[in-house]
């Protein structure tokens, strides 16, 4: 048993589950985006804006944003504990990553519900 306090779920099992579920959500979102762009070759601002003005698309996008935030936290936390051996450097890296994830998430919400 190894104690950790900076990983997302405080447990390896929950981090592992979060990582897998968020990966599925991100795959579906990416697939949707690729197909949407393929089926709208001459995409203009009005169509694009129309897509994101619908509630289901905003919910779907927010779900994807939260998934990428969780996915990045679990993934980069793992990278930091593999390669950054000095506690100070590792903690600083984790703090910067968590701060960036938080900022991007709030910014994403603002973009979705702003305009």
């Amino acid at each position, binding site marked *: 048993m*190894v104690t950790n306090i900076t990983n997302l779920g405080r447990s390896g*099992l929950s981090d592992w589950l979060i990582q897998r579920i968020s990966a599925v959500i991100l795959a579906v979102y990416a697939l949707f985006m690729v197909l949407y762009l393929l089926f709208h070759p001459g995409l203009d601002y009005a169509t694009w804006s129309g897509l994101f003005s619908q509630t289901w698309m905003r919910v779907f996008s927010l779900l994807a944003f939260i998934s990428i935030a969780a996915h990045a936290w679990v993934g980069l936390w793992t990278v930091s504990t593999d390669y950054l051996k000095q506690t100070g450097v590792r903690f600083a890296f984790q703090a910067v990553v968590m701060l960036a994830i938080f900022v991007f998430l709030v910014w994403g919400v603002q973009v979705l519900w702003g305009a």
Partner: protein
Amino acid sequence: MSTLQVSIYRYNPETDSAPYMQEFQLDTQGRDIMVLNALEMIKQQDSSMAYRRSCREGVCGSDGMNMNGKNGLACITPLSEVVKDNKLVLRPLPGLPVIRDLVVDMGVFYKQYESIQPYLQNDTNPPATERLQSPEERDKLDGLYECILCACCSTACPSFWWNPDKFVGPAGLLQAYRFLADSRDTATSERLARLEDPFSLFRCRGIMNCVAVCPKGLNPTRAIGKIREMLLSNAT
């Protein structure tokens, strides 16, 4: 053509300031001998060369080493399986401290093995004879109990290289599942609780180096997957 170029990792901490590779020429007389036989012929050229060996038939697990970049047991690996362009490079198992030449300090490996409590635990009263298993229950231990603890798998695993003090490693986890799968063991939930953190089990990224190198053909990645399933069904 029958002269083999052998390059061996040498390090004696009492006399060498740093490890170096020593070149040997070996006349195999065209025979496809085992790497261990080649090592023994080289030891006759230079008796200061150190390596571990015992049974010479893949049972004791003493002569695990890195042969042309791949871990394995020298005693059951024929030259034809590893030699490329008439060259053979022998190094100690990666990731463990070198004591001398091809001899590594297995301390951290054994410590992780000890951490999974590799012995049967049963809190019920012992029966008059032995604890019986059905043939089906016994079948579940196949592919798990055969491990000889040679450390080829754990020292081929990057997750074990980076965190040997926290990640149990494929060898230890295979044995953890060996006792989780045993119908006679009653410590299942305690065993699972010790593996639930982000390092002990979940540092496995499933790259299957362990499966690729295991000289006994065992599959630690599958055992790790089974433990994950047990943890998941307990926790959801």
